[in-house]
């Protein structure tokens, strides 16, 4: 006990000795701060280049272009925190959209469509979960295969046709606004879901277990954490959220083709990784991801205002994904080197003393 107290005193002195400079450096090399600074930079640049950028209506309305992807990114945080990955999310959207189109073509009402969309997303997620969590197969291989199954079903049945008839009220989810405000329903839903997701990740035992599993699934198992069940739930949730995204997207564009939401998985994963969640699991937080949503969303909006081609945006997204992983790698190598250097220095001063 005495020893413990002594050590506390010792180190607190050390902490105080650390220069204010190094603390500032620590803060500004924090990932969320970097992203936030980039957003500020982006806003300054675009608002100088075009008068249409800093406009409340525009800024809110462009959220239609990224809300569905942002919603997909939320459960993807769970998956990636656990060290897994799901590249079938976009295909799940295609499957859910297809089942909804099929139901609508057979006269289902809006309420039924919602249920059909959610359930087929959930079912697809559970299907992934069985192979990954129960049979223990690698998530990348499983979801690579299931993405072609999920998208293969609408493709086999729809071929080059499309479902285009949806009931009257269905359009609200992807096109409507909250009351008479300028706030799109989609974006509002994303904010609500983001708050819930953030709460689960940072304030509940479930969130704690996600971090534990991502850092070491073995040690988590040895600590009595039901690793399989949690990974299963993650995949089921991702399916469910993909179902939600399918409802919004189908409602927004009013049609279902087999190639709907193509490439969305890349964007969702990019948002999560860009948000500072480590692709190897166990590190990251919700704030980074939410900031990444705005960074990427408004980057594309600004580029679109400047009439840049969609292809440039695809390249930007891919490049950002790689850079987002490269930079922290370099930072951590630097930090490790500095630490060793410091240790060596401490050593020498010790000898002198």
């Amino acid at each position, binding site marked *: 006990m005495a020893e413990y107290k002594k050590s506390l005193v010792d180190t607190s002195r050390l902490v105080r000795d650390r220069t204010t400079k190094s603390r500032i450096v620590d803060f500004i090399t924090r990932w969320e701060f970097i992203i936030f600074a980039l957003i500020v930079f982006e806003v300054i640049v675009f608002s100088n280049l075009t008068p249409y950028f800093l406009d409340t209506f525009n800024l809110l309305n462009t959220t239609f272009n990224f809300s569905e992807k942002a919603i997909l990114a939320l459960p993807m945080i769970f998956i990636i925190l656990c060290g897994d990955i799901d590249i079938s999310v976009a295909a799940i959207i295609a499957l859910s959209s297809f089942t909804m189109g099929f139901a609508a073509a057979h006269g289902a009402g809006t309420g039924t469509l919602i249920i059909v969309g959610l359930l087929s997303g959930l079912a697809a997620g559970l299907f992934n979960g069985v192979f990954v969590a129960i049979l223990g197969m690698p998530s990348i291989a499983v979801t690579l*295969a299931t993405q*072609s199954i999920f998208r293969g079903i609408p493709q086999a049945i729809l071929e080059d046709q499309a479902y285009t008839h949806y009931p009257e009220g269905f359009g609200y989810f992807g096109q409507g606004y909250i009351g008479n405000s300028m706030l799109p329903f989609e974006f509002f839903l994303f904010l609500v879901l983001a708050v819930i997701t953030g709460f689960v990740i940072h304030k509940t035992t479930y969130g704690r277990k996600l971090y534990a599993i991502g850092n070491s699934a073995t040690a988590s198992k040895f600590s009595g954490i039901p690793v399989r069940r949690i990974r299963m739930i993650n995949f089921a949730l991702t399916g469910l959220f993909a179902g939600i995204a399918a409802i919004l997207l189908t409602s927004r564009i009013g049609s279902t083709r087999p190639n709907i939401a193509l490439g969305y998985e890349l964007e969702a994963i990019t948002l999560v990784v860009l948000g500072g969640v480590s692709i190897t699991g166990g590190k990251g937080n919700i704030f980074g991801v939410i900031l990444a949503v705005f960074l990427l969303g408004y980057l594309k909006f600004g580029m679109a205002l400047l009439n840049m081609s969609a*292809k440039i945006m695809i390249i930007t*997204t891919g490049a*950002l994904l*790689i850079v987002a992983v490269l930079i922290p*790698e370099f930072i951590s190598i630097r930090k490790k080197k500095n630490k060793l250097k410091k240790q060596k220095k401490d050593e020498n001063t010790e000898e002198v003393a």
Partner: protein
Amino acid sequence: MKELLRKREFTLLVIIAFVLVLIVIRVPAFLEMENVLRIVNDTSILIMVSLGQLAIIVTGGIDLSVGSIIAFSGMAASMLNQYHPDISVFIVLLVGIGVGTGLGMFNALIIAFGKVPPIIATLGTLSVFRGFTFVLSKGQWVTAHEMTEKYMNLPHGHFLGLTNLIWFGIIVSLLMYGFMRYTRTGREVYAIGGNKTAALFVGVSEKKIQFVVYTLMGILAGLAGVMWTARFAAAVNETAIGFELQTVAACVLGGVSIAGGSGTVVGVVLGALFLGIITNALPVVKLSPFYQMGLQGVVVLGAMVVNSLSAKREEKRLLERRLD
């Protein structure tokens, strides 16, 4: 004999024979020489690229960007042919391969030296390379009448009764067999995937091996890009979209462990041929080509389940022998 029966390649051969029998019962013409050669010809590109994927998966990685590398290098070669029809097609072929090699090397750099996990790196370059294909082509296609006859003859020409494309497939397979089995670097690929620590102890460099396999994939995908555009007489921006799945599928079917450390060239060639047979049999059994995507997913998933179950059974068999 028992060893042979337990071998993955043998099982696959039996399954292929079984499927063939089923098809031949319905359509006897399926096994005629002409049709068999057509299937092999159709599958040659898949074989080449899957062998690149084999080396990568054995190290424990994956390359999702192959489709985009094929598209970009195919587009580059086709445009060169279009604007400078007087340049020898061999130069064009080399340029296509060179472009692919460059892209593969880019992947190799960020994976081996930037320490970016392969899945993220290649998921990123999948869209970067595809985007640059659009930029390069300005959204335009290169169509048959814009290509020279000689260019299109690269895969279509015949030699000793086989198409050049089949010869390319055979040569690549033999070279890859030699590389994976008879060179130190090839064996070190297995070492890295099998036990990274042990590999380090015997001086195998992970960086070097990663660099080699992703660059190698670039070479093969570059070759495939030229072959693809010349064969279909069109270089479009959507060339080979989703092809990465087919290459992974061929590997998984061929018994390559996704976790790394094991897999053979023979297995992958058989796996690719199996996929080729199924694709070609679709119209024969009166299924629309739109079924291909879903069916492929089912076959891959099924193969993975079989792999994982048989690995578990194998482990159990070993354990039962151990103490008694």
